[in-house]
C-alpha cells in the first residue's frame, strides 16, 4: 500500500488523529488505484458477472473506508503518527533482493545475473540482513551464515529434495560427471559447518581475552 507520509508535522490544528487521516488517505489512494487498474475490465451484468465487477466495487469499498477514516481524523481524537526508521526496511529489502537475484539467473532489463545458488545467496542474505540491526558484528554474522547455510543445504537440498539450486551454475557444469550432486552437497555443507566451527573457536579465544565480550556472545550459550 502506498501510504503517503505527508501530514507528519500537523500535530496541532484541525487534525485530531493524524494516523487515521494518513491511513485514510492511503486507502483512498489504493481505492482509486484499484478503480483505475480494473477500468479495462468488463463489469458484465448481474446475471453474468463480468471480471471487472468485483474489483470495481471492492476498490470503491476500500476508498469509502478510507474516506470515512480520513474524516474521522478530523472528528475524533486518535493516535499520532508513529516514528519510522528507514534502516530496517531498506536493509531487509536489499537482503531479500540480493537473495532473489543470486539464487538463480535472473534477468533485469538487459542484464542477467549469474545464478550462484544457495551457497552464495544464503550467506549474502544473512550478512546483509544482519546490518538492519544496530548491533551487527561481521564475524558473528559470518559464523551464523556458515552454519545456517550448511543446515539449509542439508535440510532443503538433501533431506527434502526440494528443487533449489545449491551451487553456482558454472560449478555445476564443471562438476557434472565428476561427482554426484548429492555427494558434492554433503561435502560442501560439511566444509561450511567446519569453517563455521573454526570461526566460532577463533571468536571464543579472542573473547576470552576480553572478559566483557563473553557475556555478549550468546551464540555459544
Amino acid at each position, binding site marked *: 500500500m502506498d501510504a503517503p507520509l505527508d501530514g507528519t508535522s500537523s500535530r496541532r490544528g484541525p487534525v485530531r488523529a493524524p*494516523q487515521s487521516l494518513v491511513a485514510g488517505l492511503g486507502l483512498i489512494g489504493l481505492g482509486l488505484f484499484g478503480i483505475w487498474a480494473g477500468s479495462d475490465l*468488463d463489469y458484465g451484468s448481474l*446475471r453474468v458477472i463480468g471480471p471487472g465487477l468485483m474489483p470495481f466495487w471492492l476498490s470503491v469499498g476500500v476508498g469509502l473506508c478510507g474516506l470515512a*477514516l480520513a474524516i474521522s481524523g478530523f472528528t475524533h481524537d486518535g493516535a499520532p503518527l508513529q516514528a519510522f526508521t528507514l534502516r530496517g526496511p531498506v536493509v531487509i529489502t536489499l537482503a531479500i533482493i540480493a537473495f532473489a537475484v543470486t539464487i538463480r539467473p535472473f534477468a533485469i532489463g538487459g542484464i542477467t545475473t549469474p545464478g550462484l545458488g544457495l551457497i552464495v545467496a544464503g550467506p549474502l542474505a544473512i*550478512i546483509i540482513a*544482519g546490518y538492519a*540491526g544496530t548491533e551487527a558484528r561481521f564475524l558473528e554474522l559470518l559464523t551464523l551464515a556458515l552454519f545456517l547455510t550448511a543446515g*539449509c543445504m542439508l535440510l532443503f537440498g538433501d533431506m527434502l529434495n526440494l*528443487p533449489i539450486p545449491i551451487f553456482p551454475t558454472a560449478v555445476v557444469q564443471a562438476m557434472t560427471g565428476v561427482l554426484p550432486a548429492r555427494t558434492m552437497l554433503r561435502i560442501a555443507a560439511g566444509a561450511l559447518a567446519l569453517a563455521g566451527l573454526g570461526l566460532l573457536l577463533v571468536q571464543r579465544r579472542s573473547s576470552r581475552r576480553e572478559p566483557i565480550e563473553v557475556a555478549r556472545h550468546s551464540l555459544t550459550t
Partner: protein
Amino acid sequence: MADLLNNLGLGFSVALGLQNIALCFLGCLVGTLIGVLPGVGPIATIAMLLPITFGLDPVGALIMLAGIYYGAQYGGSTTAILVNIPGEATSVVTTLDGHQMARQGKAGIALGTAAIASFFAGTVATLLIAALGAPLTKLALIFGPAEYFALMVMGLAFAVVLAHGSVLKAVAMILVGVLFAVVGTDLETGQERMTFGFSFLTDGVDFSVLAMGLFGIAEILRNLDQTETRDVVRERIGRLLPGLADLKQALPATLRGTAIGATLGILPGNGAVLGPFAAYTIEKKIAKDPRRFGRGAIEGVAGPESANNAGAQTAFIPLLTLGIPPNAVMALMVGAMTIHGIIPGPGVMTKSPDLFWGMIASMWIGNLMLLVINLPLVGVWVRLLKVPYRLMFPAILMFCSVGIYSINSVPTDVMLIGFFGLMGYLLIKFGFEPAPLLLGFVLGKLMEEYLRRSLTLSRGDPMVFLERPVSAVLFIIAFAILAAALLPSLRKSRDEVFTEA
C-alpha cells in the same frame, strides 16, 4: 456412537502408523522450536515451515502441519510465561499471571499447568470435532452457493467484530484482502485482472507469499524498531508438575476455559482469539479474591490456556466440514491442502476418510506429544529464548527466502515477500491488523466464485440471498453483529474485553 468409534478407530490406525507418528512428533517439535522464539507467532511459523511438508503425502503433510500449529501455539505460551512476550494474540492473557508466577519462582508450575490444561482442552476439543464432524458435513451438503456466500459474509462480519481496534480499519483490511484475491486470471473468462502485464501476477498473488510477507518479514521490521527489552526469567524454573493443591485450584478454571474456548472456536471469523480473554475475564469475575489475578493466580493460567487450545482446535471444524477457514492459521491450512490437491470442505470426509479421521486422531496424539516432549525440554526452550534478536532475524529472513523460493522456484516470489513485508510494516505502523486481510484474501476467491454461481442460478436476481431461508438467516446475523459492533455501548464492552488486565 458406533460410527464415531469406528471412525476414530480408522483415524487412529492412520495416525498411529510409524511414519505419521514420526511426522506428528517432528511437527510438534519443530513447531515449538520456532514458536518459542520471541516475535515469531504461529502464523509466521506455519508459513515458514510450509515448504518442508511439500514432499510428503497429503495425510502426512497435514498431520505434520497440525503438529507444527499446536507446537507453535504451545511455544507462544512458553514465551508468554518465561519472557513476558506473547507469541501471538491469544497468549497475551497468559503473560499476566503466567509471567508473575515465573517471577515468583514457579515458572515450572506455570508451564506444567499450561501444558496440562492445554492437553485436557485438546482432548475435549478432539472429541468434539469427531462428534460434530459428520453431522455438520451432512449439513454442508445441503448448502448451495447462496448459503456458502452468506456463510462467508457472516464469517467476515465476525472477523471484523473480533479484530482488535477500529471496526472501520478491520473492514478496510478485509476489503483489501478480497481485492488482492481478484488479482490474476479470472477463472470464468480467462481475462487477466490488474496484473499490469507482469507475468508473475498471472496466476494471482500466491497465498504463502502474502502470508510470509505480512507475518514473517513485516514482523522482523516491526521488531527491529523496538529496542529489545527481554525479561527472561532468571529465577529457577522450579518443579514442573503442579501439586495436588494446584491441580485442584486449576481444574474448575480448566473446565470453564475449555467450554468457552471450544464454543468460541467454532464461530467463523476467528472466534478462537476471543476465548482466552473471555476465560480470563470470567475467572476474575467469579473468583473469591479477584485481587490475586495479575499476581500469579494459577486459574489465570489454566483458564486462558485451556480456552486457547480448545479454540485453536475447534477452529478446524468450519474448515474441515464447510471448507471455510475461520482465521488466518486455518487460511494457511487451506493453502497447504490446496497445494496437496485437496479441496477443503464437506467432500474431504467422504472422499478421503483416512485423511479426515487421521488428522483428527493425530490432533489428540499431537497434544499428548506436546505434553510429553515439552516439559522435559523446558531447559532447551529457555536457552532458545536467550538467542539475541540480532542473530534471529537474519535466520528467519533466510529461512523465509529459501522456503518461498522452493515453493515455485521463481525469484519474483522472494521479492514479493519483501514487498508484502514492507506493506505489512506500513499497516502495523498505521494501526491496521494484517490478520483480517489474510482471511479476506482466502475467502475472497471463494466468495466471488459462489457469488457468481448463485447469481447465475438465480438468473441475476440478487434476492436469492434473502429468499433462501438459511442464507437469509446468516445474512441477518451478519448485519446484526456488524450493527452491534458499531453501537457505542457494545463497542466499549468489546474494547474492555480486549484490554482487560
